[in-house]
């Protein structure tokens, strides 16, 4: 059951992208999401696509993982494409069927927006494919660090994230166990009318909730016994390492941004 979950799936490999500091990757993603909107003509989209393909190449991740990541959003992309084809008016009509027409601008916009979607998804999935969830957490904690000055609970947030990540598999195993226990008592999850199947979820969720609360309480006691008393005076075992490559990658993105500004119409 656990293996089916795609969320935050990390694919280990030895590549430049894997070795990069999670902070630089997060900064790059953030900037990328912004500069995608700069592209508005074929040339700028070409530049963006080239950059994205370069990144995918540098990650040494098999294309099938990227394609698998695209699948769930393909319908959304298709929907956007059709929406633009039918409703965006402008330029010469290409196809005319009575009162219904597909315009040049519709085709243009449809292709551009779908492409924008695809590029965004590829780049963000590159982040989760090359970075372990805990690295992302550490990176976020470090990047949000300055917010501590305005009393934003950065450390607590990061700890919450990492504990959640640590307990996902444990709770999955538990769900599996409760499900089997209920199935042994005659509850059906896989057949019967939808209404009954939905009802069967209740006796699954309630024991899961109760045990999660118990776990949380025990974990809190164990943490306290091990000397946890908040983020103050705490050191970090995992150190982040900003290297020349990280600066280089950010400069590369800056260059791409400049190119986009120059070539956009």
């Amino acid at each position, binding site marked *: 059951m*656990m293996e089916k979950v795609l969320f935050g799936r990390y694919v280990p490999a030895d590549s430049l992208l894997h070795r990069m500091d999670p902070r630089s990757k997060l900064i790059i993603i953030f900037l990328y999401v912004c500069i995608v909107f700069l592209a508005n003509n074929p040339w700028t989209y070409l530049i963006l696509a080239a950059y994205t393909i370069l990144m995918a190449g540098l990650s040494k991740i098999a294309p099938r993982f990227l394609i698998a990541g695209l699948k769930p959003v393909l319908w959304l992309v298709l929907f956007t494409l059709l929406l633009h084809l039918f409703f965006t008016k402008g330029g010469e009509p290409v196809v005319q069927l009575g009162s219904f027409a597909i315009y040049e601008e519709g085709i243009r916009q449809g292709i551009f927006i779908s492409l924008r979607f695809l590029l965004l998804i590829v780049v963000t999935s590159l982040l989760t494919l090359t970075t372990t*969830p*805990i690295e992302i957490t550490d990176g976020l904690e470090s990047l949000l660090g300055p917010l501590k000055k305005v009393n934003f609970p950065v450390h607590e947030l990061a700890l919450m994230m*990492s*504990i959640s*990540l*640590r307990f996902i*598999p*444990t709770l999955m*195993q538990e769900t599996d166990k409760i499900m089997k226990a209920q199935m042994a008592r005659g509850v059906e999850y896989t057949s019967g009318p939808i209404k009954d199947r939905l009802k069967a979820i209740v006796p699954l969720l309630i024991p899961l909730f109760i045990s999660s609360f*118990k*776990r949380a309480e*025990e*974990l809190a*006691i*164990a*943490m*306290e*016994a*091990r*000397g*946890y*008393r908040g983020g103050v*005076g*705490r*050191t*970090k*075992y*995992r*150190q982040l390492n900003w290297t020349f490559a990280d600066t280089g990658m950010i400069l590369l993105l800056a260059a791409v941004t400049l190119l986009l500004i120059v070539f956009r119409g």
Partner: protein
Amino acid sequence: MAKQLVALENVTYQYDDQTSPALKKISLEVFEGEWLAIVGHNGSGKSTLAKILNGLQFPQEGNVSVCGHSLSEETVWDIRKQIGMVFQNPDNQFVGTTVQDDVAFGLENAGVPQEAMKTRVKDALHKVKMDSFLDQEPHHLSGGQKQRVAIAGILALRPSIIILDEATSMLDPRGREEVIGTVKELKQQDRITVISITHDLEEAAKADRIIVMNQGQIHRQGSPEEIFQMDEELIGLGLDIPFPVKLGKMLRETGIPLTKQFLSEEELVAELWTSHYKI
């Protein structure tokens, strides 16, 4: 006489929602380097006792002192540095996402510098023989392995006392053996004082001294041999006598003379197969 590490004087503790106290005027001492087992059935107050030792709960009456610190709000963090605790559920005390992160958790809390942490994490994991599992995630480990990681997390902080609070009760026999074996080694090599809270008398038989708790009071204390002579009385207290002791008793009843009481299967077997020569 060994140095006294822990002393409880007339400790009384009552939970808010209960009518009678969980602990009634308990006084006891723990000495450096010993393995003390505290046994008793559910609700005898043994787990409350463990929580008081670590300052997770404060007694309403009486005095607790650990390694020279008298328990109070100010000293509780110093005391927690001296006493490590392994809890019952292996999953609910694993904080880190990987083995090494979990061992480092206590060190991070103590503010140990990063370079020192690296070696201390490795050393601690080496001692519990889990050093080849550095990047393993908890759900890929067995219960016994998780408990050994929990022990490593405590060892990394270099405490003088380890409390095992029913630490083996959720494990299978193999995991139980792993954990008890590890603790035994640590006690011999590093002179760590062990307090094991348990209702498993087989585990308690390995201790140097046993305290039997009943209804919030110390019922009896003594060496394992002395305690197991209580026999029927132990069963009356809701405890089960270890198999070799039971077997020894039955053999004696059927007229087979045994030289003494045997606490482990190995000793009993050795006695039996050599007994013919001694007669």
